[in-house]
């Protein structure tokens, strides 16, 4: 492989990993608070549809991304109301949200199929982007790639050294005890779920405005599900989500690259590569049972009903 190919592969790795990181970070925060939201795929599609529609109507990408975030939050608010306030089963509610989101996005986006969009352009970081190879790989991206890394740092910092992070973990481990020391369990869970919705909405906007600037039904292609699995395999650790997502991105790109070479393997086998590689690495990382148990939110999936 020549240096250009390597540069391009790494460049594409960052782009492919970005939406997964956004979704998985948001879902990780929600799960840390004890709420399992399986509606990621639905929220992602609605975010993508809303983002695309607003962008093609107004041409304002900033507004489009904002509306996609808002749409994701509205979806997660519905989920939160059902699964937190009304204490409905989280798994069933989340699956319903996915089905609802797929239908809603298809309905909303119906008139926008086949329309093209320019897409968000690239922000070159001055000076840094002139460095050979590294400049191209790291510093010639669209703003969302940078934003994602900033958001990662924020989430990492919140769980590492803030009281809010402690509160979220406490609520996710033992909501009764958290309530007993005066933490508002529902408030924390709503905040976490809404954050998850916002992140997934933003990931949707990334797909339809940057990654493939167009709208088509089901364009999320299962990324919501992959991100959900990523959270578990990453043992609810932000840094492992980052690693897993980029690894997945890298393997996805490699499978395309390898198809173009004389390397002869059945394409279906190659298509499995990203999944297999990601799972193997993350399972290997999480093989320390005690550490994994320490970071898994104990009350995940269990609605909390305050005593009256």
């Amino acid at each position: 492989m020549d240096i250009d190919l390597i540069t391009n592969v790494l460049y594409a790795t960052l782009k492919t990993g970005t939406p997964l990181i956004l979704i998985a970070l948001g879902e990780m925060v929600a799960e840390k608070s004890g709420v399992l939201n399986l509606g990621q795929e639905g929220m992602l599609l609605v975010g993508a549809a809303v983002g695309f529609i607003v962008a093609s109507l107004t041409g304002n990408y900033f507004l489009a991304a904002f509306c996609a975030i808002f749409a994701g939050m509205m979806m997660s608010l519905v989920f939160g109301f059902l699964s937190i306030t009304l204490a409905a089963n989280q798994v069933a509610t989340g699956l319903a949200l996915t089905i609802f989101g797929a239908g809603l996005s298809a309905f909303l986006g119906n008139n926008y199929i086949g329309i093209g969009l320019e897409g968000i352009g690239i922000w070159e970081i001055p000076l840094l982007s002139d460095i050979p190879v590294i400049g191209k790989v790291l510093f010639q991206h669209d703003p969302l790639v940078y934003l994602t890394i900033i958001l990662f740092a924020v989430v990492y910092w919140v769980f590492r050294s803030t009281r809010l992070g402690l509160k979220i973990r406490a609520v996710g481990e033992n909501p009764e005890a958290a309530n007993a020391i005066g933490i508002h369990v529902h408030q924390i869970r709503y905040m976490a779920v809404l954050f998850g919705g916002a992140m997934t909405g933003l990931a949707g906007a990334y797909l339809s405005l940057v990654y493939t600037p167009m709208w088509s039904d089901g364009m999320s292609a299962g990324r919501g599900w992959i991100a959900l699995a990523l959270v578990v395999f990453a043992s609810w650790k932000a840094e492992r989500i980052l690693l897993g997502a980029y690894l997945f991105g890298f393997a996805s790109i490699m499978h395309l690259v390898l198809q173009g070479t004389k390397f002869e393997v059945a394409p279906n086998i190659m298509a499995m590569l990203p999944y297999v590689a990601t799972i193997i690495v993350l399972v290997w990382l999480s093989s320390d049972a005690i550490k994994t148990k320490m970071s898994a939110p104990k009350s995940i999936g269990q609605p909390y009903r305050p005593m009256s």
Partner: protein
Amino acid sequence: MSLQQPTERLRLSGITKEYPGCLANDAIDLVVLPGETHALLGENGAGKSTLMKIIYGVVRPDAGTITWQGEKVQISGPAHARQLGVGMVFQHFSLFETLTVAENIALSLPAEESRDMEALSRRIREISEHYGMALDPDRHVHTLSVGAQQRVEIVRCLLQDIRLLILDEPTSVLTPQEVRELFRTLKTLAAEGVSILFISHKLDEVTELCNAATVLRNGKVTGNCNPQDVTSEDLARMMVGDDTPLNQNYQKAQGGNTALQIKALNFRPEDPFGVTIEGLNLEVKAGEILGIAGVAGNGQDELCALLSGEEMSAAGEINLLGNNISRLLPEARRKLGFAFVPEERLGRGAVPNMSLVDNALLSASHRGLKKNGWINYGKVRDYALQVIDKYNVKCANEDAQAKSLSGGNLQKFIIGREIEQKPKLLVCSHPTWGVDIGAAILIRHALINLRDEGSAIVVVSEDIDELYQISDRIGAICDGKLSPVRPTNEVGIETLGQWMAGQFSNGGEAAHA
């Protein structure tokens, strides 16, 4: 405007709380003075816990008023209660196992006090030393012993400006030595003017520690007294009310042939928080009760699961009447005369959503209740009715769901179901845990009767008084290792306490402290 300084710390008047089908608190009046250690006594379901939760703001009363240091208050939640200076140590700890001691404590403090974690760690060290409770702020809670976890809860309360400390059955999980340390701490606190509300089933503790007591029965206050002026028997009488015999002395038995023999049992649990069992030896004779004391989480669960067949040991032998059962599944063990009363009633001892009839079938099916794979429901029903009748199980009828029974009644049903199978070996985990005095007496009596019929019985319990009362030989388990096992009347409480804390050599002789 009050004209005089309030002399009362807390006054409850007419506190009433009704749950569907149960009047938990019925017009309760209670006064706590500064520096007073006030016991709250009563059987299970008397309404003690509900009352404490009302004071701590977890539960809101339907009627009645709370007066705090002379001012009427509506406690809106635990945060408000803590702001007033009320702290509570729950029976089931409200700690977060995956966080450190300091992080746990930081969460319950106002944000501005917990910002500087190093300063907080220093304060935790200072306070825990001042009150004689050693504590390392940087340890993760799941690595701490139960006694240490309780200290975390108490220190957490003490870091605030505390005026009233509520302790819900604080001694039930402690070794005798730990109980004494706790009492020293509580006495220091009381001397500093802190009021203490102390819930306990153990009356001698109340007479040792408390200088006021309120007795509840069926949600009502049935008596007030100063425990210093009355005997434990008087207190028990106030709690139970009727003429239930309170204490029974049972003859100790010698036992006959060996029924159960465990040789060099080894087990490494998959659960990372589980306890490893290494080289455990034990012999139980037919016609004796062998008591195993120990603080929760020292291998009791693992030992019971290995005996019942829920877990298989990696090495070693379990011989039941000469058959090596260590590789058999639970069902095969039961066919050989094994019976088991697990610690958790709902979910392990009984299926919550199934009727008592179906629950009876679950473990007794091989006692002629089925034929060629077909269930004889007539016989199953008779069996369930027999248990309900003989063990005085209070339930709507035999078709009632297991979860509709109170803890004590369900426990009577489960114990009865196992005993009526006339097992050769019965293993009971915490047979009277959380059960009121009346039911506990009945259960102990049934165990003694079964022993006298020649069964071997192993009782695992944290209730030391109970073990002394019913076991013929006694030992303790600590960190997966079994202490020497001796005839009960040769083992003093001091020795047993040392065994529970792991101070014994595996050779058999107890180490002297």
